[in-house]
């Protein structure tokens, strides 16, 4: 494969765009008009904070640690960072966070990551290899099973787009989308994964019964490149768009207001 991801070579502000900047900007745009977002730390932090300054001024970020409406004095390093707690609007217990907020249906968009994803948006964060004696033991679900089950829709941001991560068959399905739940006769709440944002482009999925389709590529990336980087026979929308590159305004906000210390803007 000879794919060259767009402009990832340098991190000098103002010149070219890093992978983190690109993914954050694209993810932030997808949050337009969304309100309650469940997010981890890292790229989702950048995306949600940029969205607050651009397309989603009323966004409320809910963290797995129980924090709602954080007003941190510094960029948080973990979802439990003390700076997320001091000055927050509410801090909830785990039973309230998972039971009332997530399962109760108060989250519009949940951000998840994964080691593996399949065409239905099912995710693996448990093991590479066999569960009983894995090649690599990964951290496991955390709250991912609940984020998928409870959020109206789920966004996945994956830095690396390759056939090992975008796989026909998961080594293990930790976090099932609604199609797998329905197949077992369990009623799901949300649509499952509706957006996957990668270094190559954007995949989208409507909801139950639909599979991920390539809807846009970054400038300079071809559909064939994405097909080659995907471990299943990739569905492609009729008119694949080109993702508009980050604007100067977006980059300035991201670099100067959201993460001036470049903690996550690697």
């Amino acid at each position, binding site marked *: 494969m000879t794919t060259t991801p767009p402009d990832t070579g340098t991190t000098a502000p103002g010149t070219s765009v890093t992978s983190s900047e690109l993914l954050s900007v694209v993810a932030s745009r997808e949050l337009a008009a969304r309100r309650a977002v469940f997010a981890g730390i890292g790229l989702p932090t950048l995306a949600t904070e940029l969205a607050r300054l651009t397309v989603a001024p009323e966004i409320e970020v809910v963290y797995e640690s129980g924090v709602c409406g954080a007003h941190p*004095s510094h960029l948080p390093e973990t979802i439990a960072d003390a700076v997320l707690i*001091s000055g927050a609007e509410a801090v909830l217990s785990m039973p309230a966070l998972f039971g009332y907020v997530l399962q109760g249906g108060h989250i519009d968009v949940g951000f998840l990551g994964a080691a593996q994803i399949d065409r239905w948006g099912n995710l693996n964060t448990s093991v590479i290899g066999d569960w009983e004696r894995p090649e690599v033991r990964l951290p496991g679900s955390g709250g991912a099973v609940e984020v998928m089950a409870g959020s109206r829709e789920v966004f996945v941001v994956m830095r690396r787009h390759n056939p090992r991560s975008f796989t026909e068959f998961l080594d293990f399905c930790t976090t099932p989308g609604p199609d797998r739940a329905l197949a077992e006769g369990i009623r799901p709440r949300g649509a499952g994964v509706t957006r996957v944002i990668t270094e190559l482009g954007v995949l989208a999925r409507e909801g139950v019964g639909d599979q991920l389709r390539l809807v846009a590529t970054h400038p300079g990336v071809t559909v064939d490149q994405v097909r080659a980087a995907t471990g299943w026979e990739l569905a492609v929308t009729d008119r694949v768009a080109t993702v508009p590159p980050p604007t100067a305004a977006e980059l300035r906000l991201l670099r100067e207001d959201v993460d001036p210390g470049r903690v996550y803007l690697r």
Partner: protein
Amino acid sequence: MERTDTAAGAGVVMSMREAVASFVHDGATVSLEGFTHLVPTAAGHEIIRQGRRDLTVVRMTADIVVDQMIAAGCVSRLVSSFVGNSSAGSLGELRRRIERADPAPLAFEEYSHYGMVCRYLAGAQRLPFYPLRSYGGSDLPGVNSDLRTVTSPYPGPDGEPERIYVVPPVNPDVTIVHAQRADRRGNTQLWGLTGVQAEAVYAADKAIVVVEEVVADAVVRSDPNRTLIPAHAVDAVVVCPRGAHPSFAQGYYDRDNAFYRAWSHISKDPERLREWLREWVYGTEDHAAYVDKLGEEFWAGLAVGEALSEPVDYGRRL
């Protein structure tokens, strides 16, 4: 990183009149919670003033405000676990309705307190049912077909399958609670007896929080653990000082025990009850008028002294 607040226009502060008109509709299921403490009385009175009909009222302790709403003709069905005037006596209108269908019948779904709590828990968590170790051998399931059992898929202590009662979720169209304070976006802090208010709010489709006062954002954010009801669960914030009378608001005013005792007598006589409603509910434009009518001398009698909590340190990064 300090963020700009959402525009003031995104706030949800509104008058009681507007909140009730917007969220309490004829035929709705309305939860009013507050366990003796922080009873949302003023909201009940506004529902009476607006002449709502055919409501299903859900309230653990159906007390004076429920008796008043029934007497005003607002309520066709009651879901409750305690139908009495606290320890001060009876609810006259409620008893006439249930004992003699006088002047009209009242459908009544009877639970125990924890049965109601579990209905709210199931509602807040959007569960199909909630299990509890009550009701075995009770006559309540015989008069309430929503009390059912399931068999646990795990063996019991004796190795045999174990049956347990469950209750269904309650998901009110609107829940109304009273609290000491909130910020203008609805992050609500209450203390003292906190009852089942958070669960009742999360169980509902819409939620109205009535508060003694709206405080500056900084006050709420100085103690985020005190926020039992986050803004994302709140649709309307109504500022209504003394809106819990004759119940109390810890730290704000005490309980009007004399009125509780008086209600047993007032409500015993249908004409006296209706006269009371005419004078104190229909005859007052809003709760502020009710408060004024009671008079400052009256309120001085319910005043409480100060007993401040010791602050805790949330810390800040140096």
